[in-house]
């Protein structure tokens, strides 16, 4: 195959009335392969498309395997949130195997997933998103950067940001140690299996977890949250930019009782300004603009098919387009925090925001999403402190079960980056169908069969790009979703 010598791209021009196309490919500092193309007119985005550029085919690879292998295999979809995929998978398996967890099993799972929430949110803000706001040292891999990167922090505040970036590397590593104490190792946990977890927390392990946790929660309270609100002051326009579709979805995560009547972040939908209860039968996946066979469009997850067609004309992404009641929905921290509307941290309260919805329209913005994520990290951390008191050293976390001949299960949970669903159908004791509907499918989806743009595509419309050679706000919008 011929080499790919870099060719000089035609320079993007002017700010006049003409439309210009800007492609950002790769979108770096995210997990995975994403390209975004925007059309800019008069210094504003007027059209946007999200291209998912990678397909592995986990759903096809799972067919015919021992169903228990699914939690090990599917967590390798994402190295940043494997615990969430493992959680969705074992929840699907729990139902298909018809097994009920012990109380300690439920709490141990919360402690494993919760620690990775903290890891993921801290990694996302500091190591993926922060370079859009904070000027890092002039060494690789932080340079090159845009000529006009629109970095507005004064030198002293900026230095705080840089110091926190470096400290956060250690804090997120510490979060992984918390996951590994109960889950075996990270990334890719051994400990989440159908029927519970594989390791009973001992007093020693709980203490080791607690000791690390104290350092992490102090960092969230004293450094992460204050820095987010400092950014909101330095970049006030970014609380008005990147609104999006304003329909929100949450499947619920962190069950607080064994019957799963209550969740720390509750299931629900917020559609066209109204709260609704969640009805999973209203989820469909469209593929008209995705590289999959047209006849497989509009299917619910339990009928889902994954038959790629990479040369399909008119399609532009390997990401399918899931919709709820045919509506485009945003998922992730903003959706969860808006739907549950919990009390916010003391620092937010001081500023007059008692609950998430007190942010009003400002919540639906680039920095609104970062505020929601940081406040959620604080909420989850507070809950972990409670679970550490509830978990019983030495009490069983695992219920032994056998692979059923037939079975079916929906495993719904929330990954740090949004709603996550695994569906399994078992026939002759092996996987007959497996469907994964990951958070990024919701947020980074292309257009659906009704012609509606996906959530990130919609959030990009209207975003100011005054200088096409330095489209900093485009990257800021995308990363705020943590795709």
């Amino acid at each position, binding site marked *: 195959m011929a080499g*790919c010598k870099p060719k000089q791209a035609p320079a993007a021009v002017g700010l006049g009335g003409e439309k210009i196309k800007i492609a950002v490919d790769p979108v770096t500092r995210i*997990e995975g392969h994403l390209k975004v193309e925007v059309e800019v007119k008069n210094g504003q985005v007027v059209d946007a498309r999200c291209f998912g550029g990678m397909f592995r085919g986990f759903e096809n690879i799972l067919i015919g395997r021992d169903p228990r292998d699914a939690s090990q295999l599917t967590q390798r979809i994402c190295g940043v949130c494997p615990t969430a995929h493992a959680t969705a998978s074992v929840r699907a398996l729990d139902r298909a195997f018809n097994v009920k967890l012990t109380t300690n099993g439920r709490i141990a799972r919360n402690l494993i997933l919760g620690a990775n929430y903290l890891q993921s949110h801290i990694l996302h803000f500091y190591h993926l998103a922060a370079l859009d706001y904070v000027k890092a040292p002039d060494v690789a891999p932080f340079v090159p950067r845009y000529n006009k990167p629109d970095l507005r922090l004064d030198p002293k505040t900026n230095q705080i940001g840089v110091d926190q970036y470096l400290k956060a590397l250690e804090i997120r590593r510490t979060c992984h140690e918390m996951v590994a104490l109960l889950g075996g190792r990270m990334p890719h946990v051994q400990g989440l299996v159908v029927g519970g977890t594989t390791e009973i927390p001992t007093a020693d392990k709980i203490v080791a977890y607690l000791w690390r946790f104290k350092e992490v929660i102090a960092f969230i309270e004293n450094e992460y949250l204050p820095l987010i609100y400092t950014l909101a002051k330095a970049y006030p326009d970014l609380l008005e930019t990147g609104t999006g579709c304003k329909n929100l979805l949450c499947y619920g995560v962190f069950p607080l009782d064994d019957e799963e009547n209550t969740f720390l972040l509750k299931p629900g939908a917020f559609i066209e300004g109204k709260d609704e209860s969640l009805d999973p039968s209203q989820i469909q996946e469209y593929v008209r603009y995705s590289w999959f066979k047209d006849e497989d469009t509009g299917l619910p997850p339990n009928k889902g098919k994954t038959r790629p067609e990479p040369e399909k004309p008119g399609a532009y992404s390997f990401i399918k387009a899931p919709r709820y009641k045919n509506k485009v929905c945003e998922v992730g921290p903003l959706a969860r925090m808006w739907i549950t509307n919990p009390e916010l941290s003391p620092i937010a309260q001081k500023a007059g925001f008692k609950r998430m919805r007190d942010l009003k329209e400002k919540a639906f913005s680039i920095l609104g999403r970062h505020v929601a994520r940081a406040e959620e990290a604080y909420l989850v951390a507070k809950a972990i402190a409670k679970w550490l008191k509830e978990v019983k050293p030495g009490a069983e976390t695992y219920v032994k079960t056998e692979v059923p001949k037939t079975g079916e299960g929906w495993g719904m949970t929330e990954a740090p980056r949004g709603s996550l669903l695994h569906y399994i159908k078992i026939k002759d004791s092996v996987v007959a169908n497996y469907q994964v509907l990951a958070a990024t499918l919701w947020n980074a989806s292309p257009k659906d069969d009704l012609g509606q743009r996906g959530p990130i595509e919609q959030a990009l419309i209207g975003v100011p790009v005054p200088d096409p050679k330095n489209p900093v706000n485009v990257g800021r919008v995308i990363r705020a979703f943590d795709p």
Partner: protein
Amino acid sequence: MSLERRDFLKLCAGTVAGLGLSQVFHPGLVMALEQAAKKAPVIWIQGQGCTGCSVSLLNSVHPSIKEILLNIISLEYHPTVMGAEGELALEHMYAVAEQYKGKFFLAIEGSIPKAAQGKYCIVGELGHREITMLELVQELGKKAAATLALGACACFSAGIPGAEGNLTEATSVTGIFKENKISTPVINVPGCPPHPDWMVGTIAHVLMYGIPELDDNGRPKLFYGRNVHENCPYRGYYEDENFSKTFTQKQGCRYNLGCKGPVANCDAWKRHWNNGVNWCVENAVCIGCVEPGFPDDMSPFYESL
């Protein structure tokens, strides 16, 4: 201050009494590495993967990832951590590859899909032309001094993306190099993901002393030279035929729960994971993620060999 290769190996293996891994990267070595890094930057590219290898690298304790990023490795291209994006990022990568032709090290995470002319993995776009992983690996592979194939996906039969049922013809680095007669040496650093010490230790060895001694599977013997089961702390239970019946019963050998330790070779049994807090067999079972047969030959994971 310098460090003899022999001592470096001993330190990596953790066989020097009283010295842990933390002493591997004593100040002398760090200084020497800094000098070496300036001459030989690392370009890290990602194919069909999950970023888990990169996240595992971030978990490095000694040296800390802060030390690695700022001082030890000159990481000129890495999609997950780099500041630049889009053409700016790609142009920089090609410029570095040209400037350091024959000198830079190429780290490849994820597998390389061959089906549909490589369209199952697009890594970027330059001058309105899409670049596939298939194309990029060949282009950079020819120019690199050596290539590190990181993680199960980049090694052997391409890990999970290459498992039975895949439609993308996911292929390992060695596979692509062989088919295209690229003679650049490849070091396999498998694992799903690899331990940070396996990656950092291998990179450090390459920078300081050249390619380490490899086993028949192209893996550094230093890290993959010994069998998990033979060295397992629960081996005594196996000899006594005392087998765990459920996951949470820890006073027993995990063989009957499906442990693949007997066919897996790495040093997780002594190195442990995440700052040493736990490891696979202590928590559950080994699934053999460092071996060429992962995942198909190791599956079902929870049935005994």
